[in-house]
């Protein structure tokens, strides 16, 4: 597939010759004057994956990915790297399970080591009602062949002796784990898909901001950009975080609000935890990266924002959640905190759909679950763009579902985006 | 006469602790009644209270106090005043309604709140560990009252003396609030 196949042998060879032979990971392109079959707006993980699968699965290679800044500069470059398929509702679970299966074969497929690490994730349970709800979820996972494991408190303690079991305000009563869950080196996902797509002929165009859509008689004919107008038979917008801003240029309003989600990483530490742990009675989840940093996060800041930065209350709340379940991290230092902009949808679930404008498609509303969805999102969006039909596992992700009353509300908090 | 007698109890059993520079003590001799001011009756109520008790409705965040200091009105909300007065009976609501003789809606809140007074020269040093409100004596002047959140507990703070503050928290939180104050004392003094 690739013109420069990556391997240990190749690394060795390059080492002996001063690394002179490495080529650009992807080809930096300029817009073609005669346009494209498909333009993907947004060079994030989802957009690049969409382009890759359009080319690979559907043979559509006259594709451009337009990126306002540098590729991977959105949420794929700014998240807590977790992958999992532990969803409850039938509208979601098969989709995320497809994504998990794609993750499991990603590196061989792309010939790029994104360090997919199925180290397992574990959700802690703190009450009987929560146990019942997690068992319901666990069964939904097993029905979908996603796998799961239920641990009693004793087993949790044995595996993770650093958890605070004895002096906890909300004692740990059990846990539901998904051994197949884990983490992925997030930036590498964007680079790997970019490389794969580029090798198949896709044009990746950085520093090219879409400033408008050329729409005539209700049909999208292309986009206006900072590099001029570009024609396209079909345009797929894929800019979660900025969905509201971009779709407004096509006159489309969405059931989405933009919110800021913060995430955190500590200084590098020798390994202390090998999987992802999620607190069930507070806002905290954590894993340790291969570099040694504890990567953790919690809840969104709760107010609408496009600012890519958050405020202190959430920082403190998340850290206290961490101290509540694993007080060994008190002396670990938080090195860096950042904020990403989330497309928070009205039911906490995403959209992959056509729009009221012909030949203009929309992918967004990923809330803070977008990273783990990257492969399936690209896979299903490519399917929709290529075939005009929703992929069967993404069939529930329609824009009109609120009009019909077909919400996919995992948390059951209703049409208030900041609660999802 | 009933065969059974109910015995009343304050939220903290009258707890009182002295530290070097700070005294922490439960307040047990005050009643609290919320007085709602319907929009179209607000003026009538104000003049009725002025006539019956000689008290005006305070500005937001402030209080007014009767001449004998037994009754203080707190203004924490636009459409309500909270009366804080020396009274220990079970019928504070009726008692206040009678004293005011004003066509307001009265709701007894005496048992809703636990009250702790933090006083002494180091009181502000102790409180700055939990209180987000600026307690600078020139900012939070004598008689100021404010509702905020301390240690995740909704709290009303009232300055009733130069170095004296009364903290009110929902009754069920009283022990947690007392603990929070004591931890501050330990950390600061």
């Amino acid at each position, binding site marked *: 597939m690739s013109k420069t196949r990556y391997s240990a042998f190749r690394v060795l060879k390059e*080492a002996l010759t001063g*690394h002179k032979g490495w080529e650009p990971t992807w080809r930096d392109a300029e817009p073609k004057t005669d346009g494209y079959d498909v333009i993907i707006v947004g060079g994030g993980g989802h957009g690049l994956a969409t382009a890759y699968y359009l080319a690979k699965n559907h043979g559509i290679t006259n594709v451009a990915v337009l990126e306002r800044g*540098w590729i991977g500069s959105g949420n794929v470059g700014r998240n807590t790297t977790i992958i999992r398929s532990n969803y409850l509702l039938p509208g979601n679970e098969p989709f995320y399970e497809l994504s998990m299966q794609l993750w499991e074969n990603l590196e061989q497929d792309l010939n790029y080591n994104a360090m997919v690490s199925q180290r397992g994730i574990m959700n802690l349970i703190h009450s009987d009602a929560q146990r019942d709800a997690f068992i319901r979820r666990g069964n939904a996972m097993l029905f979908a062949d996603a796998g799961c494991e239920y641990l009693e408190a004793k087993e949790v303690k044995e595996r993770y002796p650093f958890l605070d079991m004895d002096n906890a305000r909300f004692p740990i009563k059990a846990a539901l784990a998904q051994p197949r869950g884990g983490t992925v080196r997030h930036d590498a996902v964007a680079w790997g898909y970019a490389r794969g797509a580029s090798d198949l002929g896709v044009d990746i165009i950085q520093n090219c901001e879409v400033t408008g859509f050329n729409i005539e008689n209700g049909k999208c004919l292309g986009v206006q950009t900072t590099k001029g107008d570009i024609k396209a038979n079909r345009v797929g917008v894929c800019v979660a975080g900025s969905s509201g801003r971009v779709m407004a240029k096509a006159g489309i309003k969405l059931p989405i609000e933009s919110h800021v989600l913060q995430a955190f990483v500590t200084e590098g530490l020798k390994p202390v935890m090998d999987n992802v742990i999620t607190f069930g009675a507070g806002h905290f989840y954590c894993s340790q990266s291969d570099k040694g940093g504890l990567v953790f996060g919690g809840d969104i800041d709760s107010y609408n924002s496009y600012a890519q*930065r958050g405020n202190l209350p959430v920082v403190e709340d998340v850290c206290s959640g961490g101290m509540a379940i694993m007080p060994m991290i008190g002396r670990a230092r938080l090195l860096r905190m950042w904020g990403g902009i989330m497309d928070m949808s009205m039911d906490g679930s995403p959209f992959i759909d056509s729009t009221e404008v012909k030949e203009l498609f929309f992918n967004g509303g990923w809330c803070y679950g977008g990273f783990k969805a990257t492969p399936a999102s690209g896979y299903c969006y490519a399917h929709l763009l290529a075939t005009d039909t929703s992929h069967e596992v993404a069939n529930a992700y329609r824009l009109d579902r609120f009009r019909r009353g077909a919400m996919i*509300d995992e948390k059951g908090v209703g049409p208030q985006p900041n609660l999802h | *006469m009933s065969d059974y007698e109910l015995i009343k109890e304050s939220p903290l059993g009258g707890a009182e602790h002295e530290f070097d520079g700070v005294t922490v003590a439960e307040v047990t001799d005050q009643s609290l009644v919320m007085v709602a001011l319907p929009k179209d009756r607000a003026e009538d109520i104000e003049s009725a209270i002025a006539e019956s008790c000689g008290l005006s409705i305070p500005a937001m965040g402030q209080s007014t106090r009767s001449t004998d200091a037994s009754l203080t009105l707190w203004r924490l909300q636009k459409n309500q005043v909270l009366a804080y007065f020396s009274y220990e009976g079970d019928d504070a609501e009726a008692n206040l309604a009678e004293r005011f003789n004003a066509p307001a809606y009265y709701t*007894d809140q005496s048992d809703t709140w636990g009250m702790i007074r933090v006083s002494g020269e180091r009181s502000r040093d102790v409180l700055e560990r939990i209180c987000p409100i600026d307690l600078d004596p020139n900012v939070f002047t004598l008689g100021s009252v404010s509702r905020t959140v301390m240690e995740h*507990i909704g709290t009303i703070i009232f300055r009733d003396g130069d170095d004296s503050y009364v903290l009110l928290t929902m009754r069920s939180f009283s022990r947690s609030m007392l603990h929070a104050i004591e931890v501050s004392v330990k950390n600061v003094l």
Partner: protein
Amino acid sequence: MSQINRIDGGLIDREKVLNFTFNGQILKGYEGDTLASALLANNKHLIGRSFKYHRPRGIVTAGSEEPNAIMEIGNGAYKEPNTRATVTQLYNGLEANSQNHRGPLSFDFMAITDFLSPLLGAGFYYKTFMWPKAFWEKFYEPAIRKSAGLGTLSTETDPDTYDKGFRHCDILIIGAGASGLSAALSAAESGAKIILADEDFLMGGRLNSETNEIDGLAGSEWAKKTVAKLSAMENVTLMSDTTVFGAYDHGIYGAIENRASEAREDNDKPRQVNWRIYTKRTILCAGATERLIAFGNNDRPGIMLASAVRAYLNRFSVVPGQRISVYTNNDDGWKTAKDLNAKGFRVVAVIDSRSISPVMRVPGAEICMGTDVIDTKGRRALKSIQLSNGKTIETDTLAVSGGWNPNLHFTCHHRGIPKWNEEIASFVPDSAPPVGMSVAGRAKGTMVLADAIIEGHNQGSSVALELGYKASESKPATTSVVAYNISAHWGVPSGKNRAWVDFQNDVTVKDIKLANQEGFKSVEHVKRYTTLGMATDQGKTANVLAIGIMAESMGQTMEDTGTTIFRPPYVPVAIGAFAGRRRGMEFYPTRYTPSHDWSAEQNAVFVEVGMWYRSQWFPLPGETHWRQSVDREVRQTRSSVGICDVTTLGKIDIKGEDVSEFLNKVYANAFAKVPVGKTRYGLMLREDGIAMDDGTTARLSENHFVMTTTTANAVSVYRHLQFCHQCLWPDLDVHMISVTEQYAQYAVAGPNSRKLLEKIVDPECDISNEAFPYMAAGEITVCGGVPARLFRISFSGELAYEIAVPTRYGDSLMRVLMEAGEEFSVIPYGTEALGVMRIEKGHAAGPELNGQTSAYDLGMGGMISGKKDFIGYTLGLREELQRDDRMQMVGFKPVNPNDLLLAGSHLLGLRDKATTENDQGWISSCIYSPILGHYIGIGFIKSGHSRKGENVRAVDLVRGNDVEVEICSPHFFDPEGERLRV
């Protein structure tokens, strides 16, 4: 020999000798030392290993930007990894250990990676470790993980405490160097309320490390005098050893204060305090950080920043080596030579990359202008340097100055973008720092001390003036003007040798160029691909250097290359400090019910319900399993009488002329005509038609209602009602107030409940079935005049009441009820028995009102009024919500009564496979019914309402349970409700 590098002078207290250890060796230092200065005093140069190649490393800086000297401090649970020796104040008993090596520090087995470095360049791991597939998790990743990481966590609970605090001021001044002190003084003299914070335990900034004279005093003396003056002013709060770490919205700053130095050995006080500072204006006087120059093998122990050499020399009275050379591209570097001379040390050589005349005379030193250092020798300590003019110079310390970077971080915390200033060859703050922030001194790029002082002074004065204070009349301090000239110089071609840019993460010039070659051209891409600037020092010494190298390599300007985003925290902050007190039992406050103490006396088992502790069950002696207690509580309640504390349910008093109308809008069922003295069940929907909460509302008088909510939703329902009132119908005469805590409320349930209550209710209150029928409500008195509210409502399905008294009597009422009920063998029951009885009655609760179910799903469609507009009406009519095949709530009982039924089970057709497509629903609540003698469940199944009598399987694959169940009515017990009305 002890402290062989210690010389005279300095700002240390030689009277106070402190003992500490490094890698087990006992050493001595003085009060006023940092760990780094004490190590250097003891001639310790090799102090750690780098992240990737395990290169031997020494101390480079004297401040918070230190990349190399990071170590583990303390032992056992007190061990603190990755701690910068350069900012750790020395204390007696300090225990320091180097980290990230296998075997002794001087012979690290992992240094093998240094020889493999050609293989391990930037991003090598993206290109390999893919074959065979299964080896990644089994072999490659564990190996990588083990070698990655720096220090080690103890994995024990952090034994220290932390605190939080709040401070308010008019002007926050960040940095107490020359400009910060000047700003503080002029601002304070104006009367404004000032906080002056500095990360160092000694205020004065670079003045403590330099030899400038200010107002005729030594700089450090002037600083000391100024600090003393400020500390005497009432409107000034000085916060030393306090690092401001972030600028947040609207004038909120976060700052971490370390435990006071005298208490460093005392673990009783909080280790750190996390201050939230609220300020109207901020003056950033954070100074500048010196940077290195990239040349071959520039990372050896003994190669230091020129300014750090001066700091050790002047402030700490330590001379780091015997044969010191200087390499610089600016005038400032020469100061090091000058100061060394002043202390009587000969300088071996001064190498300046600029082809200009020597900046000053340095007696005895070899001066090499227009010359570069191109390579160095000495694995564990610097031995010699090789120059571009071909000379090799024996030297054990090389003081390097590549120029100064203004510490403009805070100006970018709100996404400001720095501007390039060619004159000082550095980025300077842009014109849009966070609102309310101004910058003075070297943080702004004002490199000449005399100007920085004036700038600080003027800003302090003008900011105070803008806030309405009078202008300061004092004049700024004076010092002689010393020019600062620089020619940007990033790196020297190093041939085969590696030239380090990011010391800690081992990023070299080659790595940056390789990243560019592979298409990673954005500065963010380079950072992510090479890990540049991602180490514990956040690239403070590395980033600008890297940008310079990128700009050169790609032939673009510094400004076009740009910086990565500056984000908080300015320096790493302990997670424990952010958490403050919130951990363990103090993670959240605790709410106790009125019957808590009494229940504790009965050995009740408590359970967390939100912030409340509620009694879960009351074990009697001899009961060994919770089921024994719960079954007994249910049986006894159903056969006689039981009491349960239900105070936690939300209670809202609603008064006003329009309450009926208001309730009619917020409840789905009709509420316009509730008679006085009656209670009505109410179902509240969200606007989207999904059930939100339920409860009862009683009308106590014409204009007075009292509403109850579930425990979980007490706060959110109140908030929702306030929204409905203030935002939707503001002119309704409605006044709400929470009375949840005003009343202790107990359910008294069971056939003998009336008889029990009659014993305590005052005789003038008639509570007979006729006078006080099912759903009656009223205000009564009990026990001789204590006011109470009585509601004849039932969650258990029995004849039952809820009685509420002022909370002051709550504990007492529980005791009285138990005493009065003795003749009926009254028992207390907990939340478990409460749950059993509600499931026997088929009442929906939390697991059913889960935010995904409509009134129709819950079987309450019949209650919905079609004659009024209410919250949730219109959207509740949407097609998907009205479908007959939705998951509908029904009951389930095992076909074999001995079978175990488990909540969370999913429902399947009798012969269906367990797949998502075949999934028909789930069991939401499940208990063993002691009355019926078998398990029963409530749950949701497709078209459930029309499938009663059908058999399906309840399958729990998670715990391995698969039983056949019959779909039935959820009303398992007394479906006609006869027991309620007796």
